[in-house]
C-alpha cells in the first residue's frame, strides 16, 4: 500500500475483505482489481456521502416527528453508522492530507407529521439501496460486495419503517 506515495488515497478493500472467506473463490479477481484506485475512490466517496445524508435524515426525523417511534428508528440509525464506519475504513488517507468528507447538512423538507416522516425515510432507504446496486458494475469485487451488503441492509429497513408507520 505504501508503494504509491504520490497517490493521495488508496483503497484498503482487499485488506478488509478476504473474499475466500465468503465464497471460496475469486480471490484473484480482487487482487487484479486493485491497481485502479482513482475511480474506486470516487465510488467510495459517493457512497460515504449517501450514508452521511441518510444519518442526517434519521437525525432530523428523530428530533421531530419520529421521536415517538425512536425505539424502531434507533437500531436502523445504528446500522447506518456501521455502514459509514465501514465505508470510511476502506479509504486510506495519508497523515496530513485534508479529509474532504463533509458532514451532511440537516436536509430541508423533512415532514413534520409522523406518518409522512416515516414514509420519507422509507423512500430514502429505497433510493439509497437502488443507487448502490446501480454502482456495482463499476466497483472492484470486494467493494462491490460491501455495496451489495449495505444495499441489502437498507432494503430490510423498508418493512421496519412500514411497520412503525402502521403502529
Amino acid at each position: 500500500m505504501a508503494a504509491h506515495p504520490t497517490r493521495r488515497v488508496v483503497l484498503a478493500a482487499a485488506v478488509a475483505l478476504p473474499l475466500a472467506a465468503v465464497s471460496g473463490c475469486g480471490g484473484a479477481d480482487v487482487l487484479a482489481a486493485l491497481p485502479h484506485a482513482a475511480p474506486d475512490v470516487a465510488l467510495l466517496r459517493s457512497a460515504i456521502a449517501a450514508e452521511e445524508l441518510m444519518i442526517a435524515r434519521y437525525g432530523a426525523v428523530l428530533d421531530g416527528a419520529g421521536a415517538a417511534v425512536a425505539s424502531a428508528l434507533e437500531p436502523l440509525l445504528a446500522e447506518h453508522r456501521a455502514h459509514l464506519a465501514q465505508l470510511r475504513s476502506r479509504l486510506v488517507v495519508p497523515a496530513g492530507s485534508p479529509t474532504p468528507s463533509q458532514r451532511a447538512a440537516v436536509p430541508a423538507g423533512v415532514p413534520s407529521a409522523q406518518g409522512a416522516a416515516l414514509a420519507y425515510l422509507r423512500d430514502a432507504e429505497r433510493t439509497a439501496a437502488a443507487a448502490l446496486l446501480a454502482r456495482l458494475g463499476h466497483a472492484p469485487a470486494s467493494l462491490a460486495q460491501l455495496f451489495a451488503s449495505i444495499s441489502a441492509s437498507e432494503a430490510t429497513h423498508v418493512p421496519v419503517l412500514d411497520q412503525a408507520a402502521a403502529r
Partner: protein
Amino acid sequence: MSGGSAAVPAATRALQAALAAEHAAVYGYGVVGAYLTGTSRASATSDWLAHELARDALEAMLRSRGAQPVAAAAGYQLPVAVKTAPEAAQLAVTLEDRVAAAYLGLVAVSVTAIRQFGAQQLQDSALRAAAWRGSTVAFPGLPPSSLAAPRRD
C-alpha cells in the same frame, strides 16, 4: 459436486456454490415448514418457493454457460437441531445466512448480469432473514471477520 479444477471459470464455480446453497435451503425449508403453523407456515412455504425459483434460475444460468448444474444431495445435515417453532425460525435464519454468503460470491464475479443477480438475491435473502429473525443486521452475508475494525472519526 467437487472437482475444483482450475479450468472451471470463477463465474461458474460461484454459480455452482450458490446453487448448492439453494439446494440446501430448499431441503431445509421443508423441515422449517413442518414445525410451523398458521401464518408462520405460510411464510415458510412462500420462502421455500422463492428458493426453488432461485435454484431454477441458477440451473438455467449454468446450463447457458455450458456447465452441468450440481445436483441436490439426498439429505443434508441440518446446521440447527429443530424440534420447536422457534428452532425452526432459527434454522430459516441460518439457511438464509448461508445463501446470502453464497450470493456475495456471485457479486464478486466480473460478469455484470451475474453480479446484479447475486446482489438482488442477496437483498431478497436479507429480507427473509430479517423477517425470521425479527430484527435487521448491518451487513447481510458478510462474515464479521471480513469487516475492518472501524476507526474513530
